[in-house]
């Protein structure tokens, strides 16, 4: 079907502002993705999937400027023993990064893959993104596949001794970065990927994660606090038999964030947990869009999303569990909750179930409300000042999401960040 | 009345043999008790006799008055007179206890070609039976077993037994989760149903239930077989010395 004229014009304008880098072995994938973008058109506010989030500034040819925010705080995960891979405004910084060699994992830059004819990542680059385009279109991910300028390919073959930390620094007010990472976790291998930082004034990131049978990947991400930054991220994860994927995202501020997670359970007995906590103050729009597909027997999925909003902040949750025919014994759980700290903030949610198998136990819950006055009073009657009591209850509210992080040190890092945010914003 | 011959049963989903040749005969008017350690196959026997899914009979037979039970659907067995008092009675939200009972009573009457009970007769009957089990009107109104205490659930099982008047009553660990008073109440309910035409198979782990429901025959089950049978004194032996002596003796 032909695209509406306005959509086609907007899409072509955006495409005209981009140049495809020398594609090497990713050429076919990139050209395929470009064709997909043209076919789908970039999102507009009239699209159902963008009902609650205006994509205009994510789609526009030029990225709006974003001031650099000096928090004075050390970067998150600074105290964790990790291997750092640093990108400054979307460009790999070899000097700031650690040596990329680590036992049990092989890390290549996207640039290096592109100049090779044969590379394992060739079979993954753009593949999961393409699979993720049905039944819902994600044109900005296809745009990313076509035009990504940098990124890494992480091949996990063993159990590396420390997490790999992708660090995104934002140093230029008009940076507009497109990064694309591919990760493959082999059978019985296990790794932890950390991501931190605001990355750029406008950031489009796509990550494709393929986990083989019995593989495990932990993923913890903290999206930078720069007030004016905008981000659209896609994570496509495919899970093999008895594999595990656990992901957590912390978002604090940022004028616009859209995080899409697309998880496909294709092997029996696989487990996928995706969680997120977000705290927003003022001109803040945060959107978690999650799509979990059960296409195998006896799999478990959990979605836990918590949002704390104040001063006119907006939180969006669109979550779906799709259980395909034959995906029996599915255990699917989804919870989305918001805590509105004042009357100007809003929570918009569309938690969906689509189920074609009968032997399943699927549930979702969604709530929205103010802080529990009874609990607040109870704490105050015990001598806790209102502000501290509110913060305490807020942290307790977020705890169910933070608890999804298995590693205690990492969970503590996140809690420290949340505490810092609360003390600055209450 | 109930005749089990060389019954071999395994789980459908895994290749695991649970019953390995059970032979048992329960005559009308008699109470047989089956005792045995955990995992000996006692509950499996009760499920296989009542026709629960998930079990595969690989050998042997089970008949009630000469009729092949194993060929029948669960409801056909019920209509033929098999009643299982569940170890863990199932909760059915939204379905009133009375509605459930009446549907069951009338389904069985229909299957046996009898007139359905009128609402008035049914009510009268339930109230009468419920009273002796100390089941109040509130319990009858509530959804089946939902929010019932352990004792209430077991009393409810016995009420159903009293209403359905089965030929062959199988009581699966009916004493589990009961305090002394509840056990007494339940036992009285069972004893009131003892008569010439009715057989009982009482499955229990402990002797104490048999203080209240006096068995005619006691069987010891171990590793999927009945390894020893005897009079009520056998239960006392278990109570005093545990299973290990008997098992050692048999082996």
């Amino acid at each position: 079907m032909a695209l509406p004229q306005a959509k086609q014009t907007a899409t072509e304008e955006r495409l005209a502002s981009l140049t495809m880098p020398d594609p090497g072995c990713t050429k076919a994938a990139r050209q395929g993705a470009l064709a997909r973008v043209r076919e789908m058109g970039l999102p507009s506010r009239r699209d159902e999937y963008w009902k609650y989030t205006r994509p205009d500034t994510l789609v526009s040819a030029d990225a709006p400027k974003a001031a650099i925010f000096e928090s004075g705080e050390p970067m998150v995960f600074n105290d964790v023993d990790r291997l750092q891979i640093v990108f400054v405004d979307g460009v790999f910084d070899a000097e700031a990064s650690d040596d990329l060699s680590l036992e049990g994992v092989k890390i290549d830059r996207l640039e290096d893959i592109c100049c090779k004819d044969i590379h394992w990542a060739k079979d993954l680059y753009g593949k999961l993104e393409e699979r993720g385009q049905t039944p819902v279109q994600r044109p900005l991910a296809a745009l990313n596949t076509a035009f990504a300028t940098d990124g890494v390919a992480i091949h996990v073959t063993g159990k590396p001794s420390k997490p790999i930390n992708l660090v995104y620094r934002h140093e230029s007010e008009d940076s507009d970065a497109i990064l694309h990472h591919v990760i493959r976790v082999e059978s019985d291998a296990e790794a932890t990927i950390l991501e931190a930082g605001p990355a750029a004034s406008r950031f489009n990131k796509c990550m494709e994660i393929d986990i083989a049978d019995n593989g495990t990947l932990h993923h913890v991400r903290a999206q930078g606090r720069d007030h004016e930054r905008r981000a659209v991220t896609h994570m496509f994860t495919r899970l093999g038999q008895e594999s595990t994927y656990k992901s957590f995202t912390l978002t604090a501020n940022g004028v616009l964030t859209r995080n899409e997670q697309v998880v496909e359970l294709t092997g029996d007995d696989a487990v996928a947990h995706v969680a997120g906590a977000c705290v927003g103050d003022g001109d803040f729009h945060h959107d978690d869009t999650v799509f979990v597909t059960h296409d195998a027997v006896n799999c478990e999925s959990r979605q836990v999303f918590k949002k704390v909003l104040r001063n006119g902040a907006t939180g969006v949750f669109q979550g779906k569990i799709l259980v395909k025919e034959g995906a029996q014994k599915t255990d699917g759980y989804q919870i989305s909750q918001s805590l509105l700290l004042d009357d100007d903030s809003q929570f918009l949610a569309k938690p969906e179930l689509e189920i074609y198998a009968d032997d399943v136990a699927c549930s979702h819950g969604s709530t929205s409300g103010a802080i529990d006055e009874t609990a607040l009073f109870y704490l105050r009657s015990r001598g806790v000042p209102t502000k501290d009591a509110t913060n305490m209850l807020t942290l307790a509210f977020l705890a169910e999401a933070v608890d999804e992080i298995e590693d205690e040190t990492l969970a503590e890092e996140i809690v420290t960040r949340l505490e810092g945010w609360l003390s600055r914003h209450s | 009345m109930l005749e089990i011959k060389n019954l071999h049963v395994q789980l459908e989903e895994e290749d695991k043999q649970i019953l390995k040749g059970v032979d048992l005969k329960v005559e009308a008017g008699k109470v047989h008790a089956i005792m045995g350690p955990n995992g000996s196959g006692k509950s499996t026997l009760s499920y296989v006799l009542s026709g629960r899914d998930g079990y595969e009979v690989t050998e042997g037979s089970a008949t009630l008055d000469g009729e092949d039970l194993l060929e029948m659907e669960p409801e056909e067995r019920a209509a033929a007179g098999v009643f299982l008092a569940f170890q863990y009675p199932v909760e059915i939200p939204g379905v009133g206890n009375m509605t459930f009972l009446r549907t069951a009573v009338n389904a069985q009457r229909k299957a046996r070609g009898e007139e359905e009970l009128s609402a008035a007769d049914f009510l009268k009957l339930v109230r009468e039976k419920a009273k002796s089990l100390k089941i109040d009107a509130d319990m009858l109104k509530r959804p089946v077993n939902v929010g019932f205490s352990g004792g209430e659930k077991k009393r409810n099982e016995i009420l159903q037994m009293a209403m359905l008047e089965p030929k062959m009553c199988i009581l699966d660990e009916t004493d589990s989760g009961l305090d002394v008073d509840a056990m007494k109440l339940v036992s009285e309910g069972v004893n009131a149903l003892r008569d010439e035409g009715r057989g009982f198979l009482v499955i229990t782990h402990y002797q104490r239930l048999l203080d209240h429901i006096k068995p005619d025959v006691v069987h010891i089950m171990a590793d999927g077989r009945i390894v020893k049978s005897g009079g009520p004194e056998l239960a006392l032996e278990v109570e005093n010395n545990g299973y290990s002596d008997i098992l050692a003796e048999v082996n």
Partner: protein
Amino acid sequence: MAALDQTQVKEGVDQETVDAVREVSTYKYGWETEIEMEYAPKGVNPDIVRLISEKNEEPEWMTEWRLSAFERWTKMEEPKWAMVNYPEIDFQDQYYYARPKSMEEKPKSLDEVDPKLLATYEKLGIPLKEQMILAGVEGAEDMPAEGRKVAVDAVFDSVSVGTTFQAELKKAGVIFCSISEAIKEHPELVKKYLGTVVPVSDNFYATLNSAVFSDGSFVYIPPGVRCPMELSTYFRINAENTGQFERTLIIADKGSYVSYLEGCTAPQRDTAQLHAAVVEIIVEEDAEVKYSTVQNWFPGDENGKGGIYNFVTKRADCRGDRSKVMWTQVETGSAVTWKYPSCILRGEESQGEFYSIAIANNYQQADTGTKMVHLGKNTKSRIVSKGISAGKAQNTYRGLVSMHPKAKDSRNYTQCDSLLIGDKCGAHTVPYIEVKNNSSRVEHEATTSKVDDDQLFYCRQRGMDEEEAVALVVNGFCKDVLQALPMEFAMEAQQLVAISLEGSVG
């Protein structure tokens, strides 16, 4: 409701209905009455719209209203967002007006009435006296009524064929008549309220309805009046290839109360038929309206052939403070259902409730739910939806809960459960939740599961066969909604649940 009471009630009040429903094994209402019909030509255009208006002897303003709706409709597109699939509907291949010829002159006694029409009412389970009134027998109104009173308005294909108990209702000041009559007799009320809850341009089907609705029911309850009896409408589509577009307008003035029942049936046919109704309810200060529906349009056969396409717009506007509306629906029929009875909670402390059972078996597709739009302070809403899918059916709950910035201290609770019977069907939940103030609390819970094997085994061990066991467990699953129905509807609904699920197990 206590189980004990149920038993007693079953003996008394509506045993006949229950027995009648129980006896049939397939679609009970699948007969067709061969009555001589008068049709307008197929298709829809301004001339047909004028013709319908003319047949109903409508004033000019009404004709204009319809024509402007038609004008808008021609510029609209059929909505595609619901999770339902059906072949393209040719809107020009339908009759938009059909009525029994026997209605042209009023019969003097029951003997003069077309016996087939009477047989129809009998099959619908309408009592004799009501049958006479519906058949238009002169003087029937004054005869004494037997048993419990329910005033009935029957809509046969496109026209309302009669309304019972008019005199008695009139005494109480209640107006209950066909909408065509209301347009003539009470134009000031119709003018004031028609299209104010569901605007002419609301959606594709509602707009089409506004242009071509041929009849329907009208209710006005004056201030402070508690309607002395339940009001009821039976809708029946009889003629082939005929779309039915009825329009219902209910006005509950200040402090009044009414309980309204709606039943629908249609003959078994192998071509699909269109039904696009609009129901508007206005609830003024302190007034309360209960609207209960048992929708049992022909669902198509077990291979998915035929059945009614049911595209219905129902909306209640709680205009006054402390007004209250309660929608209860049991949706067991129709091949395709597209229906979202909604509440606009405008008045302070107004309340909206939605209780729904939707059963889809064989190839049925149901996309149904509600919208609760909270505009006023301290408003409350409650949604309890029970969806059951069996065979190859698809069942979707679609709902919206919206808390506007000014709707301070409001509450919503939504419970949305789906049950699957068999591995070829689908159960889907698509709720939209929009909260724009922080003093309101919204809770949404949804679960999907299959009929519990342990429960079925337990029932079967007690002697019930599988279908009986499933029906019992499903009725338990639906209990919260069944309880919200008026008594005799509840009994009928319970039986319907069992019948609708026949053939779904084993």
